[in-house]
């Protein structure tokens, strides 16, 4: 990546960064998408990566991402035209041509797909997104907080079918889509938030795509866990809560929350060293909270992730095993997520943890 360009050579770093921001996914499930994007960039040349402010304010934009299950995407690979079809349908519904796309959430597979779509459409990729990480529902975005409507939206499936949706209340969109996505095969290509570059200049979170590449370079550059933490701190404010061994994995220990499709479970880490404390990580589809000797130390929207100390790599949540030595890392989210309104939406209470966020105490 140089001077606002994304090249095929940047894809490994982009992928590594995308994994850091969504550690629940196994790297192997991204393989097909990585190969697709690399091929597109090799054949089509570098992609323009621009800040929203660098575009004329009236350029039409859309947020794209994969909605549904990343594992389903690996099982039922895209035919390649789903995202373009979704954007074209959105253009038809909104009556505005799309001149640039941005990731709905710059993390996991949804950090890679927008680059591929931009390449396919021949438009720039906006260096910004709506989440700065991943949240569970599609209206959990800074655009929604800023008042941009999530719909009309289009979801296109690998089957050639598509769903379009218009809702007056953003929070209904996810609920209405979910059954349809199951019927499409478990995942769909989403194009949503039809908007202008001018609107996105204030409503999106800037710099999040290039930040992924920088973080990815750190992760690929060294396997020394202390160096990884120190360098990530410079990129995204990452800090280490503690280092310890996993002593327990508690699965399905509690009743599930009906609104967020996931199973609550816990990972318990006994810190090593003289100031040994017990760290309890609460898991939903991601790590949503860290308790240190029972005291809430970090919680969503903080991004909480584990670094495998012995291998110097980010540990996917489904690979954890008692006895593993891990660093518990906390990366602060964009400040917009710590407002009272945003915390209600994505804070600890949204995961059933009825405690004040550590940043609000």
């Amino acid at each position, binding site marked *: 990546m140089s001077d606002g360009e994304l090249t095929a050579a940047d894809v490994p770093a982009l992928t590594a960064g995308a994994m850091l921001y969504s550690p629940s996914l196994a790297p192997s499930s991204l393989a097909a998408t990585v190969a697709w994007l690399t091929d597109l960039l090799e054949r089509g040349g570098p992609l323009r990566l621009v800040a929203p402010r660098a575009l004329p304010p009236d350029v039409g934009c859309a947020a794209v991402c994969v909605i549904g299950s990343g594992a389903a995407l690996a099982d039922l690979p895209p035919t390649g035209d789903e995202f373009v079809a979704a954007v074209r349908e959105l253009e038809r519904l909104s009556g505005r041509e799309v001149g640039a796309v941005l990731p709905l959430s710059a993390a996991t597979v949804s950090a890679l797909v927008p680059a591929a779509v931009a390449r396919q459409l021949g438009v720039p990729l906006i260096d910004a997104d709506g989440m700065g990480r991943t949240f569970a529902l599609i209206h959990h975005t800074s655009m929604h907080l800023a008042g941009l409507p999530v719909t009309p939206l289009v979801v296109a499936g690998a089957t050639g079918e598509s769903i379009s949706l218009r809702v007056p209340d953003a929070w209904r969109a996810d609920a209405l889509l979910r059954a349809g996505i199951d019927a499409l095969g478990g995942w769909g290509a989403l194009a949503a938030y039809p908007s202008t570059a001018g609107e996105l200049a204030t409503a999106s979170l800037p710099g999040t795509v290039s930040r992924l590449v920088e973080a990815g370079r750190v992760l690929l550059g060294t396997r020394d866990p202390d160096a990884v933490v120190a360098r990530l701190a410079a990129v995204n404010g990452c800090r280490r809560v503690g280092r310890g061994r996993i002593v327990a994995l508690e699965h399905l220990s509690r009743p599930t929350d009906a609104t967020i499709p996931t199973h609550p479970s816990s990972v318990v880490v006994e810190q090593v060293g003289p100031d040994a404390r*017990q760290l309890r990580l609460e898991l939903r589809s991601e790590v949503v*909270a860290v*308790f240190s*000797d*029972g*005291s809430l130390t970090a919680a969503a929207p903080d991004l909480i992730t584990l670094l495998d100390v012995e291998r110097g790599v980010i540990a996917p949540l489904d690979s954890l095993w008692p006895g593993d030595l891990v660093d518990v890392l906390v990366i602060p989210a964009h400040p917009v997520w710590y407002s009272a309104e945003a915390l209600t939406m994505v804070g600890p209470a949204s995961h*059933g943890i*009825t405690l004040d966020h550590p940043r609000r105490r």
Partner: protein
Amino acid sequence: MSRATAPLALAELVRVDPLARGEVAVLPDPAQRVLGVELAETFDRLARTPAHSLVVLHAGAATGGWSLAAALHVAWERGAAGVVVPRAAMSGASALLARRLGTALVVVDDDAVDVALELAARTAAPESARALRVARCAEELAEQSTVRGVLGVLNAELAPGVVALVTGSSVLAGRAAAVQQREGYREVRMAVNGPGGRAWASLVASLPEATSAVAAEVEARSAESVLRLARLPLLAAWAQRRLDTSAQAEAERAAFAVLRAAARSRADGADTAPGERDAAAGPAGGAAGDEAPSWSAELGWRVEGVNRAVRLERTAAREGDDEPAAELTQLLRVQWARLRPGWPLVPHEGGWVSWQNAAEEPAPAVVRRAFAGLEPLLADHGLVMGVGAGHRGTAGLVRSVEEACLATRAGSDPVTWFEDVGVRAVLAQVSAPAVADVAALALPRLAAARDRLVLAETVAAVLDHGGSLVAASAELGVHRNTVLARTARARELGLALDDPAQRLPLHVACHGLVRAWRATGSG
């Protein structure tokens, strides 16, 4: 604060329902006072918990995982006495955290609201809770049938205090730490009288010092109540144990007699000539020709294969003596079981019989090693031991027992092996008391001499070695001249060592006299 309203300690509260129905996961400070009960369903409520209250988690505060960890943290911050949690919300990691924070944690299966209500009633009326505790303890004690069981209940009930049953300075059962003076602990003692009101033993409890005078009095009083309740079950269990042990020993004695009689009658039925009896059993490897009765296995005995018997006898025992005291048999059986597990110990004709059983005869060195290390036991109880040879089957066992008996009588060492005794075993048939009686008539001057035992030993040794003074002096460990002087004195007293006609009876008489005088200590 009056005695009746002294608040309950956690240790007391967990002994009564509803917590007694639950499970104590962590109890770092059993002496912690409980001043109230809080039913907490939210973290806001938890954050207002008064110090020294017992927090019962419920609803949103008891969803498990993070909620219990967070509740433990708040309880620790607020100085709560402990946390009560429904089982569904409990996990091993939470117990670890409770231990780290030093916060008591009790798991309950009942509905949290019911538990909180019951707990509130208990803490509001401490004396009634204490009465309930004593009643519950009485039930548990009544269920115990062993001394160990009774002490186990006491130790659980008075934890972190420890309890032991002592007589004199010996600990009969329980935890030895109870009789040690420990910093921060005080002693509560309760005499236990045996049948007829005689003092038999004492129950000693070592309890942590109380925080206040009132608490000290309350605790001493409830400890005394509990110890008092334990006295009767203890006596009953002790009596039962004595009864059981005696009955078992008697059963084994009778069983061995039956086994012996059966083996003998089989041998007699085979119409063997005197002196050949039991030869059919043969030495190790010979045809056994008999089978062990099935009931011998029920007693835990093994008689198939090669048996090598041991005879234990009191040094001072005389032929025709009564059986040794039942207490001695009990004591020996316990110690023997510890030293030689798997070997029975059966009271038999004034002594005891035991045997080693092996599928095949082990190598001689292995055999000797198996019998080593018993000397301290023999010395402690004034016993001698004879070891028979190894023979196969039931008949072989009976034969080995007879050999062991002969070795005991023929030998003069604490342990005598039949294989070492050889033909001297014949001397075992000499009735020592009868010889002593005859000697008084035939050798009156020797019998009247002050040094008669030394003289008889010396003459026996000289005759054992065919008249060799050198060999006799080596065996006796004295100078040759001493032997010479003693034989000269023996001759003066009428012992005709040089008369071929008298040598054999004199030799036998001396062995008999030595044994009789040693046994009676009248040398």
